């Protein structure tokens, strides 16, 4: 109560995790080789905390259970794809803050994943007192009047990396803005609720964008096969397809003969 305008920021960054201390990270030179069907891991990037003894103690105010739920929602989008064999939800404790690609290599080898989808977020919460906050001086007013305006901005990002080549395959963002009011007494509770709602809405948008990005990525592989090399694991799924061109020619031949039989002297 009576704290004036406040700002809370919780964030994690893919760049800080993968390239700790590198001002100008060098781009990878090798062409990514994807062996289908893929094994994909999904993880939240750890927050960059200064507490080296307890790096996961205050991970931006998002609990592990919340994270696993959000990871599962993103994983659902990948599970429906035929070219993905398995999805692993990677717990936060498997990734070290600023662990870089070495950390990803360890996790990739341990969980047998080829591609990792890293989820990062940035949530900023503002709270300001409005005219009703004057009622807080009456003590009872702090229980009754909604004298605080809250504003929660959440930005989430999913970045898919090929672990071996260290290439960014695609990325998808999701954003949300939650506005609300609170009484002086329940302001912290309301901010937590808004924070959760912000994550929820941003994840919803992220999943939508992820669908688009997955389709674009698939198109990109087809249009520019030199950018990503596709290999198949032993034991593959095959299809017998005649294709549109062949089918078109056969249908035209059939149609031509049928017309010729109907009007032989035309």
């Amino acid at each position, binding site marked *: 109560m009576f704290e004036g305008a406040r700002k809370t920021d919780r964030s994690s960054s893919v760049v800080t995790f993968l390239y700790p201390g590198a001002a100008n990270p060098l781009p990878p030179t090798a062409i990514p080789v994807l062996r289908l069907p893929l094994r994909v891991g999904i993880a939240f990037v750890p927050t960059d905390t200064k507490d080296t003894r307890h790096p996961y103690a205050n991970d931006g105010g998002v609990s592990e259970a919340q994270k696993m739920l959000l990871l599962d929602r993103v994983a659902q989008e990948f599970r429906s794809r035929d070219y993905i064999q398995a999805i692993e939800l990677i717990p936060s404790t498997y990734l070290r803050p600023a662990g870089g690609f070495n950390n990803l290599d360890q996790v990739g080898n341990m969980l047998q994943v080829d591609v990792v989808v890293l989820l990062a977020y940035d949530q900023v919460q503002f709270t300001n007192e409005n005219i009703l906050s004057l009622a807080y001086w009456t003590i009872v007013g702090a229980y009754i009047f909604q004298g605080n305006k809250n504003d929660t901005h959440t930005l989430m990002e999913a970045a898919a990396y090929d672990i071996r080549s260290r290439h960014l395959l695609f990325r998808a963002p999701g954003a949300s803005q939650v506005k609300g009011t609170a009484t002086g007494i329940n302001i912290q509770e309301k901010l937590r609720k808004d924070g959760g709602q912000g994550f929820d809405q941003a994840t919803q948008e992220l999943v939508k964008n992820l669908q688009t990005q997955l389709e674009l990525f698939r198109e990109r*592989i087809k249009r520019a096969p030199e950018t990503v090399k596709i290999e198949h694991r032993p034991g593959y799924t095959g*299809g017998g*397809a005649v294709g549109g061109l062949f089918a078109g020619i056969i249908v035209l031949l059939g149609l031509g003969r049928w017309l010729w039989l109907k009007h032989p002297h035309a």
Partner: protein
Amino acid sequence: MAEAPPRLKSSDRPAPWLTLCLVALAGGCALWPELRSTAIYDREAILRGEIWRLATGHLVHFGGTHFVWNAAVMLVVGCWLESLAPRLARGFLLSAPVIVGAALLALDPELKIYAGLSGVATGAVTLLALILVQGSRGDRSIGIVSLALVSIKTITEFAGGTPWFAQFSDASIRPVPLAHLAGIVWACVFASIIHRREGASSTDRGQ
């Protein structure tokens, strides 16, 4: 080779019921996923004893486009073949799914899952072309064009390793040119068996 049958009036032509049944069953598999999982060619399931999958796997498709192109070729060629030589066509259309499935099982142990009517359809195109090349001048041209087309398609698929005529929307699914080759080879063998049998029976009649 199988002799070209005499040209019939459209009212005398036999109904292509087997082709229509095959395409309808393939359509059913496309509409009902339960059918798809029971019918698809699954190497492990076949080796466990579910041998019907050798034949029914051809009725399953991986998507709308995959089904539409295969069904279009099967419909045109199957109806044409059944109206020209019904017994020959039905014998081929009933045997080809099993033969192509068995060829995949024996010659491609890496192939775990397979779907698509194209192996049978390519065989049917070959058989039709073999019949047409013995017919009138117009039919002969169509037969030669079809044989050339099938040869180019198969050689290109084997040589390039990548599909020239067909591409799946799903990058994890690979085309299987072996299915097309098995269909072509079976069409040639089947036509030659029928031709020999017809030759033997005409010799018997002559004696």
